[in-house]
C-alpha cells in the first residue's frame, strides 16, 4: 500500500516568509508570482507527488497555515 499526501495551505494569510520553501527537502513548494490580499507573494505547490509528508514545512510555518493529511492508496 502506498501513501499520498495532501497539503492544505491557507495562502490568503501567507506572509511569504519562505521558511517552508527553504526547509522542504523535496522542493514541493515555491513562492507564487501573484500577490494575496495581505500584499504578499504567497507559497504554492509545485509538485505534490514529490511530497513525503515529513512535516518540515508544518514545523517551520510561523503562521500555522499548512496542514498535512495522509491518504492510503490501494
Amino acid at each position: 500500500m502506498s501513501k499520498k499526501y495532501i497539503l492544505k495551505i491557507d495562502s490568503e494569510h501567507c506572509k511569504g516568509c519562505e521558511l517552508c520553501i527553504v526547509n522542504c527537502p523535496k522542493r514541493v513548494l515555491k513562492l507564487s508570482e501573484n500577490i494575496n490580499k495581505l500584499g504578499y507573494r504567497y507559497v504554492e505547490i509545485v509538485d505534490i507527488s514529490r511530497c513525503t509528508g515529513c512535516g518540515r514545512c508544518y514545523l517551520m510555518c510561523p503562521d500555522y497555515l499548512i496542514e498535512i493529511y495522509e491518504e492510503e492508496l490501494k
Partner: protein
Amino acid sequence: MKATKFIKPKAIKELYHNYCPGCGHGIVHRLVAEVVDELNIRDKTIGIAPVGCAVFAYDYWNFDVSEAPHGRPPAVATGVKRVLPDRIVFTYQGDGDLAAIGTAEIIHAANRSENITVIFVNNTVYGMTSGQMAPTTILGQKTLTTPYGREIYKDGYPLKVCELLSVIEGTKYLARGAVTNPKNVALTKSYIKKAFVNQIENKGFSLVEILSMCPSGLHKSPVESIEWIENELVKYFPLGVIKDV
C-alpha cells in the same frame, strides 16, 4: 481514508496573529501549545504574557493568560502559582523584558526556586519598539541604538542569561534551543516539554531560552536572519541543556 498528520494544536485559537513575516514568536507559541495539548493540561494552564511583541499572546493561546507590566511576569507568576498551586503557570518573555527591565524579577524568582516554567525568547533586540540594542545583542551587532555595532567599552558585554542563572541553586532546569530549522524546532519542543513536566513534578524553577528570528529588528530577510543565528549567534549562545538537576 484521509488521516491527519500535522494540524495546528487545539491550544492555539482559530485566528491569525500579527507578527511580522518569519517572526519566531509564532513558532514558539505553537511549541508551547503543542506541549500543553500533549500533557493534557489546557484546562489548568495559566500563561503570563510580557510587554513586547508577544503582548497579545493572550489573544492567540486557547487557555487562560494574564498580562504583566514590562519585566514582571515572574512576579505575577509567583503570585498566581502560590495562590493556585494546582495550576500550571508559565511566563513568556522577550530578552528586553526578561534580561533588561525584569532582571531583578527573574533572578529572585529563580533564587526562590518558584515552581514555574519560563519561556525566554531571545531575538537579541527590542523588537516591538523597532530594534534597539538589548542586553543580549552581541558584540559588533548593528541595531537602532548601536549603528556602528555593539562595543564593549560603551555598551558592555552581551548577557548570557542561562549561564548567569546556572550558578543559582534554585534553578533546576536550564536549556537553550533555537527555532531556526526543523531539527532545532523539534529539540526546542523537547526542552519546553521537560520544563513543563518539571513543574508538574514539583521540581522547581525551569527556564528555556530560545534563539528566535526578529527579521524586522535585525533588518534581514527571514532566511538571512536564520543564517545569521546559525552562523554567528550560536557561537556566543551555545545550544543545548545547560543544567538539569
